[in-house]
């Protein structure tokens, strides 16, 4: 069945030539010399006043990276990246910013234009008008320029700061957890990140604390010829809860810019982490010129019993997306979730999905993925669900649907489902008609046609997840999700 007109219009309005965040901020910046050598690594480390152990860690990663090969198994094609033709560090030149008023007005203006409040009083104004309170860490190229609500969070015992600061102020925590979820040599891009990561957020929520507000990081690539290599580390100690959001944009440029991030989540006993992303990097123009190469490693470790990690992503940007937010379900009774909506347009190529690795007993995971391809784009879902020998009672449910708009694009599904335990129960389906028959029946009994009923059920479900997002994300995301399900092709 072809897509309905409403869906087509909705996706058109998100087309690559409609990119709203493509402006560039004219600001003087300080860069590392072009190219990547041990000196670059040392330069970055020195810029951030890092301790010796971290420099060694980076150098080790760099040496290993040199022996690795770029992976080629994903369903994406791009010209070879010249890793020596990039700036690995770029920071706006400014005096030490002690308070929000010291920040370069140009940067403030940039974030204002993006709709991200960096002044706490602005954010509070937002609350009066109905939005929830969100603490923001704003990362501009390679550095964090501002982090809001730090004091208020500190009162609750929550540590929320740029990772470069955390290295200095909480070395014991960083040392303990950095690289413990995504090992240094996990993959080519993660290793590169380990060598040259610049900034990102660090979050630690202590035992039994429910983080009093949403935390978020807003990533902005501004400078020409730079890559962004942020590193995020979130730890929820026993019984803690945190919801974290991530947003990203970049200027429109003819060149491709590299973004290779690593995100590590650790959930200890009874802890819960919700991680939401609205990825809106510049996707390139309609002929596929320019755009961000997004090679990201995101992984959550449900280390403790009864812990839970939930990934939600709305993906509309990037020329190339290579991203598989995963959950390692190590603790008994732990849960992993992955909700994803990936929309590709123009010449975008998306190869995204998740991994659910069941190790502990009675672990459960759920994967809901919707891919929508339009224009000349390719949209691939690639996922792994695996139960190891000792993962007694593992449970997984996967549903991935995709929709094609136009006959020049492609939608692909590549699921790997591996069960090594007889009591594991895995279900994978890629049809829209298989939503709970009971619910369908309920709706139809009340006079809704099957189409309406299906849309209602799935949208109701997705909206549930979206309610966790703050206003500025939710509005954008909801527009994307309002897309009808008619014509799904599995």
């Amino acid at each position, binding site marked *: 069945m072809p897509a309905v007109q409403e869906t087509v219009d909705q996706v058109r309005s998100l087309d690559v030539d409609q990119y709203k965040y493509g402006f560039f901020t004219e600001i003087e910046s300080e860069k590392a010399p072009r190219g990547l050598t041990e000196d670059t690594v040392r330069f970055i480390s020195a810029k951030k006043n890092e301790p010796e152990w971290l420099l060694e860690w980076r150098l080790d990663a760099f040496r290993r990276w040199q*022996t690795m090969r770029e992976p080629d198994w994903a369903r994406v094609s791009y010209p070879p990246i010249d890793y020596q033709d990039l700036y690995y560090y770029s920071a706006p030149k400014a005096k030490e910013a002690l308070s929000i008023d010291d920040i370069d007005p140009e940067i403030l203006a940039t974030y204002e234009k993006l709709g991200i409040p960096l002044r706490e009083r602005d954010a509070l104004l937002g609350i009066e008008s109905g939005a929830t309170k969100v603490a923001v860490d704003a990362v501009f190229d390679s550095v964090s320029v501002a982090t809001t609500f730090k004091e208020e969070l500190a009162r609750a015992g929550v540590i929320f700061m740029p990772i470069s600061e955390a290295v200095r102020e909480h070395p014991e925590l960083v040392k303990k957890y950095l690289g413990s979820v995504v090992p240094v040599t996990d993959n080519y891009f993660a290793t590169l990140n380990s060598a040259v990561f610049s900034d990102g957020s660090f979050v630690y929520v202590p035992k039994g604390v429910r983080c009093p507000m949403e935390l978020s990081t807003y990533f902005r690539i501004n400078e020409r010829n730079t890559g962004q290599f942020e590193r995020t580390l979130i730890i929820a100690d026993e019984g803690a809860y945190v919801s974290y959001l991530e947003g990203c944009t970049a200027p429109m440029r003819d060149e491709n810019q590299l973004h290779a991030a690593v995100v590590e989540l650790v959930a200890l006993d009874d802890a819960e982490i919700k991680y939401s992303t609205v990825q809106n990097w510049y996707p390139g123009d309609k002929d596929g010129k320019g755009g961000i190469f997004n090679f990201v490693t995101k992984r959550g470790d449900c280390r403790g019993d009864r812990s839970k990690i939930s990934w939600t992503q709305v993906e509309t940007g990037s020329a190339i997306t290579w991203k598989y937010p995963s959950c390692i379900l190590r603790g008994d009774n732990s849960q992993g979730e992955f909700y994803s909506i990936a929309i590709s347009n123009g010449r975008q190529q998306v190869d995204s999905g998740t991994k659910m690795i069941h190790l502990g007993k009675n672990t459960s995971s759920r994967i809901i993925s919707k891919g929508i391809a339009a224009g000349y784009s390719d949209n691939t879902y690639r996922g792994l669900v695996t139960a190891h020998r000792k993962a007694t009672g593992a449970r997984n449910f996967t549903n991935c649907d995709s929709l094609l708009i136009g006959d020049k694009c492609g939608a692909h599904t590549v699921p790997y*489902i591996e069960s090594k335990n007889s*009591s594991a129960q895995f279900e*994978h389906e*890629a049809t829209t008609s298989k939503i709970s028959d009971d619910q369908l029946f309920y709706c139809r009994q009340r006079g809704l046609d099957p189409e309406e009923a299906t849309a209602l059920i799935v949208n109701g479900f997705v909206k549930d997840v979206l309610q966790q997002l703050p206003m500025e994300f939710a509005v954008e995301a909801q527009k994307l999700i309002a897309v009808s399900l008619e014509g799904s092709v599995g």
Partner: protein
Amino acid sequence: MNADIRPIRTPAEQAILASLGTVPEGGDRLADLRRAAARAFEENGLPHRRVEEWKYTDLRSLMREAVPVAGAAAVAEADARARLLRGVEARRIVVANGAVVPELSDLADLESGLTVTTLSAAIAAGDEVLSRLGGIQPGRYDAALALNTALAKDGVVVTVAPGATIERPLHVAHVFAGAHAAASYARSLVVVGEGAAFTYAESFEGPDGLAYQANAATEFVVGDEAHLDVVRLQEDGTGAFHLATMLFAVGRESKVHTFSFSLGAGVARTSLYATLSGENSHVGFNGASLLKNRQHADTTLYVDHQVPGCESRELFKHVLDDSSRGVFQGKIVVRQAAQKTDGRMMSRALVLGDDAEMDNKPELEIFADDVQCGHGATCGAIDDELLFYLRARGIPMKEAQSLLVQAFVGEAVETVEHDGLREALVERAEAWLASRA
């Protein structure tokens, strides 16, 4: 990390390379095909887990032993071994160690419209039909098929004339006979003419505990508006390697249905490639694997929808006991031109053994927007509630399990149209269940 360095050749590879030295020379098309296949093997060798299509069946590490190419089988032994599907009313041809045994084959009084000959005879006679051989290519390197192309000397060549309806199934019984492990290669070709109807069955068996290798490939060229049913029953010996390839070229408005039943062999790999190049055809590729002990069975499917309006259905069932391993990889490709395609693929596994493993990879690759495609995969133990229901009615545990397994497999077996063949398969399933300690 560096994948460019080629690993050292394994003893099995060396033995195969040595036998490739005997690939017949000559200027004709067939010899060219053989040489190209031999070269491809020399270049790529046995596939390993880094080769995506063989990810779960690492032939390089599984196939340890080097075995020579099998010699001719003793007729009496071949006769004694060919037990499968004997009760089915069918025209029987026995292929032992890769060569047709004329003494055991019923090649007389062929129905009108049916031509059956052997590959070796067709080659000797320069038969016109051989121009179809090797006509269907998987589009990627397949080690099992390459070896078969390079080394198979005999097999069955069947032609069904346009419009002919052949009621009686043709059963090709492959057997391995001999006391020493060896490798057999058989290549068959089935050409079904326009509007013809035909049922083709093949079975595989051999002695238990012997690490022989049975490599069989069959090409099916199905004409417009034709109807073809294929049933395969694989009960090779417990130590055997079973490597099978089925290739289909399907014409316009035709119907093709296959059922592949896998019970035997230590390691079995069945690859099925289908190209739908005629509009509005309907194909159904089904199968079931019942495995126990340390058996390993891999079914890999590649269905290529090239034209509009075709329908494909795939249903595969795995029952895994002890520490067996089942693998299902299915890929449906829908090309840009193939609008109005309707494809459904389902893989279900029932895990009985604590150490059993199931690997599912159902893939979709879609380039047309007005299509309906879906896939599903499930895997789990027998539903406790169903067991409870039966046991509450006084049925002992073992029997209740058997009933549920039978029902599970039955859904797939029922798709076999031919009554005699279907009943024979049901019987084999029952025998398998009865053999569970």
